[in-house]
């Protein structure tokens, strides 16, 4: 399977009276790293979560690898898919949470094996072999039998990344993967994501790490108040921002 392309078209979403996404169109090229920046409350997490249908859009749609996500077209309307189909689609999209959300009652190895085994993607022995390989890649071969609570935040997040990769997704979404970490642990997690970027998968990363965006991103998207204010290569958006709101934001975080 080659890296997946994703496309978001006309995305709109409200929570009560508050419109969080106000018509977003975004093209994500296969095999690229897209970094989404923006002040808190700008809708970046909601947008990311809409890509694997953890958040339902009010209007608009998401296409991953040529397939509508979470909905199907019936006549001239989009209708939500059944839960089983949505789960099957999600299994092909990796998702890494800000708070790791590892399963605390399962060991590191069990955390990584759970999805491929329970979705029937791999038999147990193969899932185990793959999990050990992934844990070695994120530098945690020694911790396979540890429980999540026994690990540092950075180690937990690396397990979470291995867990997301266990299903061999061609698109991986990161929702502020380093925001819950102590400053000295941020580097180890970013290093893992950086290596992942070279693996040919398509990555979409919501983050506040401007340095990471500059070094790793192919495409930077700046979101504010539910709309894309500016987007382009990091050399343009981060170095010579055109929009005053982007400039303002970068001045504050740098």
């Amino acid at each position, binding site marked *: 399977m080659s890296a997946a392309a994703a496309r978001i078209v006309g995305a709109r979403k409200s929570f009560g009276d508050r419109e969080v996404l106000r018509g977003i169109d975004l093209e994500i090229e296969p095999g690229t790293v897209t970094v989404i920046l923006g002040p808190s409350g700008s809708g970046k997490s909601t947008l990311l979560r809409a890509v*694997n249908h*953890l958040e339902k859009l009010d209007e608009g749609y998401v296409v991953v690898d040529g397939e509508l996500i979470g909905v199907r077209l019936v006549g001239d309307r989009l209708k939500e898919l059944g*839960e*089983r189909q949505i*789960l*099957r*689609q*999600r*299994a*092909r*999209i990796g*998702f890494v*949470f800000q*708070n790791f*959300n*590892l*399963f*605390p*009652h*399962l*060991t590191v190895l069990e955390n990584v094996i*759970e*999805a491929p085994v*329970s*979705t029937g993607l791999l038999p147990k022995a193969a899932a185990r072999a793959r999990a050990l390989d992934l844990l070695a890649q994120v530098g945690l071969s020694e911790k396979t039998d540890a*429980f*999540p*609570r*026994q690990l*540092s935040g950075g180690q937990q997040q690396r397990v979470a990344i291995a*867990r*997301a990769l266990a*299903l061999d997704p061609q698109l991986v979404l990161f929702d502020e993967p380093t925001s819950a970490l102590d400053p000295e642990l941020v580097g180890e997690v970013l290093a893992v994501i950086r290596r992942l970027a070279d693996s040919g998968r398509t990555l979409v990363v919501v983050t506040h790490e401007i340095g990471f965006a500059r070094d790793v991103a192919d495409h930077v998207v700046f979101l504010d108040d539910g709309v894309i204010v500016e987007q382009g290569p990091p050399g343009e958006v981060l170095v010579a921002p055109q929009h005053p709101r982007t400039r303002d934001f970068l001045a504050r975080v740098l």
Partner: protein
Amino acid sequence: MTTASLRSRAAAVLDIPPAAVSRRVQPLRHPWQWVATAVVIVLALNLGQTLFTNPAWEWSRVGHWFASPAIFTGLTVTLEATAISAVLSFAGGIVIALCRQSRNRVLQGAAWLYIWVFRSVPLILVLIFLYNLGNLYPKIGIGIPFGPQLQVPTTNVLSDLTLGVVGLSLLESAYAAEVVRAGLLAVDHGQHEAAKALGIPRGRQFTRIVLPQALRSIVPAYVNQIIGLLKSSSLLFYVSVLDLFGVVQNLQSTYPSDIIPLLVVATVWYLILTSAVSIVQHFVERFYNRGQRGIR
């Protein structure tokens, strides 16, 4: 400035003799604890003495009845009724709790109504109601309203023990539902999201991810319920089930001189049973605390 000169300056300001600085700080004394201890010991000795000196306890008769076949039959019935009700109630509790959390308003309402009714009504009333169910509905069955029905006579289906178990389970499910619901709510929302994001099938999300974590808080609470259930099962005597308490009551009317020793026998057996449940609880809790003993 040297340590020594700092110390002497501080001591001079607060007027503390230099010797006090290097002596161990004396902990607070609790004289009243000694008084309380003495009172408890005196009371305990008094009670202990009467246990042996008062002939009315009739310890030899306690020994006679303690492991008698009649008591064992009662014990079996108590255990049977408690165990079956505990399992049925837990299963029922899970179903009712899931209904309460459902998005379907009718299921939500039905679950709420069930809990409301069966938490409000005393067990003895439900038991006697069921006992007289034959008068209310001579036949019970299931079918389409105003359509074909499948029916059997009520008294055939419900033996006294079955009826007792049904009564216990009806009430206990309502409590179990609340215990299960609290446990499910205690599971972090992120766990549901992670399971969804990984595409884990829905049933497996519940059995493998959510329920094991919920059980951590469900088990201790539910074991307390089981202990309550064990004791409530003594009320089955009133619908002619001869459980431990029922057997004791029967023996008392046959052997009126043994009333006290028989009560002692029942007390000791209930103590043993509840202690056994607590020991099992300890091990079950340890199992479900897997992963909780972190080093952070």
